């Protein structure tokens, strides 16, 4: 059964960016807004962010948005667009104050202001040393942001469609965005949402790797849907591996541990970051630290020769750990039986964050092509988008900042847009495509389970398109992913029912993951340099002459992936060698 709903604005995804966008839309009287989310919004992965959100409030020491901007540009390895970065760092202060006014329970300084602590890559005086810039609420800042935003959505009476999986984007015949098709997981019914504007805030796709900090739900649905609808994906080769994930599980251990003074040690007990980053040491940017850890492990200095090193916080004392890092202490005790007050934590890098995604301008309008042609009514914000504030490597805390700043900007611009725009016509048979997909997935009687294909994909991506990359290895990965895409045609869905069919959902999600693994690998093979998180052992240096540009990958009608480029916006900071 197909249901139809009409709204002015739709927000797809109930994480930080989506809820922030919805709050701004809900402040516009008369505007009909709905949030459509595959999970109850409070289950979104924003809630797993721990360490903080940066803004140059200067509550504890001198700080300026332009220092923050410089750090972000440098962190991005000069691939970030400096106009977007400037907007983000300047608006950071206002947005954080606004979140506080919305009720966010930040930790406090002695004089009652928002507490701040150092974080990787954030410096004073353009790289002179660490600065206390990360505003935090213990080690559950993301949880507090998510809860506060959800609370304010309830306060403002936002309409929610919870556990509705958006499965397709609708474009009207004249090329405007006109809605989405969503699948009500509970009933199995399809719903057509007809609207003037749609905002994709669907998050990332860490599940294409085997060791990841990402939730099971982070399957890149929005990115994959956009790709299928002919929208290019930008900078997909840049994927961040967080230096400190719990060994084997990948669960995030916040950079805040190092912000509070924790250090990394190898099998010899050596504080090895002193060798890799003499100034910032353990607080160098994430790509640098993750590579250092991987190098130590590869050169046999992992603990007992295994694939992990220690994150040592034992010298911080029980007080700091229990009060400022209570959740990570709980994770270590629950999953490792390790008490971080007394023992070091075994960690390894974990797939964490997509710098790339759906290209947008600074108002979060989705743009295509090298000349940034706007698709009217289609927006994206947060991890799903590539506005590009993170360039080739994101600094810690800038993800939460990205969510709230660009969530807000998208809401404001959509509200402006909806005031004047009319409702574009729906295409004929809007559900045709997804009905065909589901019918095919359900018709298979003999085949392999989605989980098997997924595991093979995750393993090959982990081995060859991880922290260290080289051409031949990535070719192996690409061949494997394409083989898996072939085998995926006969993936077996055992559950043939309509109600809460998560078997079908997982199979559909796997299709997204495979597409994104393919695009990531193609982009990574294509970029023959090393920059930020994209580290090629066969091209070890950054090549600004040939590669100071964004990659755009588009799926052609025939199914091939076409690569084009667009220039990087450079305003204030010219590319320099990057040393921490």
């Amino acid at each position: 059964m197909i249901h139809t709903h009409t709204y002015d604005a739709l927000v797809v995804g109930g994480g930080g960016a989506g809820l922030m966008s919805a709050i701004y839309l809900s402040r516009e009287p008369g505007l009909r807004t709905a949030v459509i989310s595959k999970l109850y919004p409070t289950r979104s992965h924003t809630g797993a962010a721990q360490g903080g959100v940066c803004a140059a409030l200067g509550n504890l020491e001198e700080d300026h948005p332009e220092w923050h901007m410089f750090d972000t540009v440098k962190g991005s390895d000069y691939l970030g667009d400096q106009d977007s970065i400037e907007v983000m760092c300047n608006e950071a202060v206002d947005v954080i104050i606004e979140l506080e006014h919305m009720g966010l329970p930040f930790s406090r300084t002695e004089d009652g202001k928002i507490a701040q602590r150092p974080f990787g890559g954030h410096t004073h005086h353009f790289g002179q040393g660490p600065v206390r810039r990360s505003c935090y609420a213990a080690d559950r800042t993301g949880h507090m942001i998510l809860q506060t935003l959800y609370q304010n959505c309830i306060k403002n009476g936002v309409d929610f469609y919870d556990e509705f999986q958006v499965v397709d984007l609708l474009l009207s015949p004249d090329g405007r965005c006109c809605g989405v098709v969503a699948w009500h997981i509970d009933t199995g019914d399809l719903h057509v949402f007809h609207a003037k504007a749609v905002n994709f805030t669907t998050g990332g796709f860490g599940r294409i790797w085997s060791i990841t900090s990402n939730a099971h739900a982070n399957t890149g649905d929005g990115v994959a849907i956009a790709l299928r609808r002919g929208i290019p994906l930008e900078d997909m080769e840049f994927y961040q591996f967080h230096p400190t994930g719990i060994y084997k599980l990948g669960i995030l251990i916040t950079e805040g541990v190092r912000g509070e003074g924790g250090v990394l040690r190898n099998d010899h007990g050596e504080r090895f970051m002193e060798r890799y980053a003499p100034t910032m040491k353990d607080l160098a940017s994430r790509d640098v630290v993750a590579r250092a850890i991987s190098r130590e492990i590869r050169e046999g200095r992992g603990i007992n020769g295994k694939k992990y090193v220690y994150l040592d916080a034992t010298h911080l004392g029980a007080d700091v750990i229990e009060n400022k890092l209570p959740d990570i202490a709980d994770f270590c005790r629950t999953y490792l039986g390790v008490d971080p007050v007394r023992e070091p934590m075994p960690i390894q890098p974990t797939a964490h964050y997509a710098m790339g995604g759906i290209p947008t301008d600074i108002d979060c309008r989705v743009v295509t092509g090298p000349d940034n042609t706007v698709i009217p009514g289609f927006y994206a914000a947060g991890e799903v988008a590539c506005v590009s504030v993170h360039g080739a490597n994101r600094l810690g805390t800038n993800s939460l900042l990205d969510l709230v700043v660009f969530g807000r900007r998208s809401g404001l611009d959509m509200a402006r847009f909806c005031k004047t725009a009319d409702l574009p016509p729906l295409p004929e048979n809007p559900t045709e495509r997804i009905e065909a997909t589901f019918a095919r997935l359900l018709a298979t009687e003999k085949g392999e389970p989605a989980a098997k294909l997924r595991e093979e994909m995750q393993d090959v991506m982990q081995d060859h398109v991880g922290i260290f990359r080289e051409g031949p290895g990535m070719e192996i990965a690409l061949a494997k992913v394409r083989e898996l895409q072939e085998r995926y045609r006969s993936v077996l869905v055992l559950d043939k029912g309509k109600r809460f069919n998560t078997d079908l959902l997982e199979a559909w999600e796997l299709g997204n993951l495979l597409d994104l693994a393919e695009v990531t690998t193609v982009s990574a093979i294509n970029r023959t340099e090393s920059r930020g998180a994209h580290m090629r052992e066969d091209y070890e240096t950054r090549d600004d002459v040939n590669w100071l540009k964004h990659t755009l990958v588009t799926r052609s009608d025939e199914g091939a992936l076409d690569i084009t480029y667009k220039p990087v916006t450079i305003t204030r900071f010219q590319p320099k060698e990057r040393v921490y």
Partner: protein
Amino acid sequence: MKTVTLTILRFNPETDREAAYREYRVDVEPTDRVLDALSKVKWYQDGTLTFRRSCAHGVCGSDAMRINGVNRLACKVLMRDVGDRVTIEPLMGFRVIKDMVVDMEPFFAQYRSVLPFMINDSRPPQRERLQSIADRERFDDTTKCILCAACTTSCPSFWANEEFVGPAAIVNAHRFIFDSRDEAAGARLDILNDREGVWRCRTIFNCTEACPREIRITKAIGEVKKAILYGSTAP
């Protein structure tokens, strides 16, 4: 790696008239989570097994269920702690949609009923509202709630009467009642000063025992009761 038996209470609304137990044997590591064991069953034995999950490390609140008779998050219990025979059932007190999936709407309706958001209609300052470390500490415990419903569905008062607002909603009211920046404690206390509000709590402590975030829920409810009695939230 060893083989364990999972006894799972299954219900498929499209084929079953009532729920029934089914056994699955699955190989697990002692350090695997119960969620990992369930996933192995779903992925490689029976794709129709249905449960919610997302973050898999106890922060999203999706996978609360009854494990060996007590409410737990499946991702926060390790196999070595539950023995070789594990019974898994859905949360009690909500309508079962399918297997472990229960209807959460009544739960969120109760949550929404206690004004779970900051209310301060005075003009905000240019910068942040100031709050002392001590004032921030007063409601710290209840900010940890992830709305997993483990507490509410472990409460005998709630089992007996689903109109009871439930411990989770009270926890989320507490989070604002004791926030020095909020101005609507009185309105929330009025809401909770009701037969189906805090007074339905019989101080049984099941909620505190069930909370995966270790929130001292019964204590928080006690603080709300006292605030109603004294007509004040002063410490």
